[in-house]
């Protein structure tokens, strides 16, 4: 590696950049922090989903509700995670809850527009057909409109999960344990192996979760097979509408 040549002098000479034996020696610790990181990364998007579905349904039904909600979420999305964490510390303390609430807020910013778009994407003939078949409004929502919205919602959920897993490691700066522990520890001890390992683990965790969500999405939408995938609306696309 190029980096090897530029290595600062303070590291003992001859110590390779990656000490492979570190991994088996610290296996239990690595596993524990990986689990912590997975929990912090997966829980918030799921809570966010549970909030954004009813909120999205309400936004579609009462149109006036949506523009202010959209402005609020896109504003929250722009705030650095570290700042959100420390704003919450005062109310929720230096614990998991702080990181979970902050990441839930970020997930909500991604999910809400996707739920609304997914529901608005249901074509009028389909709704009318459901009504003509005698579906009540609630049944039409649950059995027709929400299933049709699944691909768009799933695409948003994938973005939320991947971002949360990666952002969870920042929680370590306020002392909430995650794979970020190895970043800070590796920094203090000037020991790159830890940092490499944790970066790889975060990436693997994120991409693995992404893969699982792709599979779940396919299972949930058997009628979509062989069709093109829905593209998520990225949270950044909201700006255009607000301007």
């Amino acid at each position, binding site marked *: 590696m190029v*980096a090897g040549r*530029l*290595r*600062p002098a303070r590291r003992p000479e001859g110590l390779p*950049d990656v000490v492979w034996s570190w991994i088996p020696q610290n296996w239990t610790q690595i596993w524990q922090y990986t689990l912590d990181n997975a929990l912090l990364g997966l829980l918030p998007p799921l809570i966010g989903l549970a909030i954004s579905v009813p909120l999205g349904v309400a936004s579609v039904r009462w149109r006036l509700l949506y523009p202010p909600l959209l402005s609020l979420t*896109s*504003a929250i*999305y*722009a*705030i*650095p*995670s*570290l*700042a959100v964490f*420390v*704003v919450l*510390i*005062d*109310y929720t303390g230096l614990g998991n809850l702080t990181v979970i609430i902050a990441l839930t807020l970020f997930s909500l910013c991604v999910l809400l527009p996707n739920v609304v778009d997914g529901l608005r994407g249901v074509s009028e003939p389909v709704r009318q057909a459901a009504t003509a078949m005698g579906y009540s409004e609630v049944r039409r929502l649950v059995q027709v409109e929400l299933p049709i919205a699944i691909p768009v919602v799933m695409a948003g959920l994938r*973005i939320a999960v*991947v*971002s949360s*897993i*990666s952002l969870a*490691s*920042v929680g*370590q*700066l*306020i002392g909430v344990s995650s*794979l*970020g522990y190895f*970043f*800070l520890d*590796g*920094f203090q001890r*000037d*020991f*790159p192996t830890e*940092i*490499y390992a*944790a*970066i790889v683990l*975060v*990436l693997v965790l*994120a*991409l693995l979760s*992404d893969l699982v969500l792709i599979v779940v999405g396919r299972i949930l939408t058997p009628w979509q097979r062989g069709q093109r995938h829905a593209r998520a609306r*990225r949270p*950044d*696309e909201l*700006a*255009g*509408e*607000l*301007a």
Partner: protein
Amino acid sequence: MSFVRFAWSWLTSAQQWHGPDSIPVRVAQHLGYAGLSLLVAAAIAVPLGILIGHTGRGRFFVLNLANVWRAIPTLGLLILMVVLLGFSALTWLIPLVVLAIPPILVNAFEGVAGVDPELKDAALGMGMTRWQMLRKVEVPLATPLIVLGLRTAAIFVVATATIAAEIALGGLGRYILDGLAANDYAEVAGGATVIVVLALAVQVIFVVLRRLIVPAGLRAQSRSSR
């Protein structure tokens, strides 16, 4: 509401507004880091995205990049750079630029690739050369997405510059990390408030930028279609 009280008392004390650690200095540092990396990233990613969108080559690469970059742990990348390279300007500039490139690249690509083929046919039919078509049709139509990409990158760069305080970089993250280390919650709260204001101000800048750059015809169109 002690957060507000703490932040207020910290923000209103005179020592925060003078000297080398004062708020104006830290804001300038923060905007300097974010602005410089955004400029470098834009100089690389906008032309590249337009090129890939125009030719269609490298499409697969760009679409996958869009999925992977959100997974990159920024804190880890910053710390890795310090441990490997020691502390220098490159230590923070490289990760910030690398992280700002994907959203700009992907949006520029999608903007140009998404131009209606009929419009391109019309441009060629009118006798435009390919270069004229790119300059007068494809790029103007892609501006809403290009600005969007810059905005996402800006959000990302401002957030990462905050975290970069961990690797002894200046900027507004200093207040939060120094305050946490010293158990000085007033400093933490005050610093966080300044960061929130800065992040929102950057958003306003992009709303204005959009007004200035996006052709009037496109803006009118997007308004009527919603």
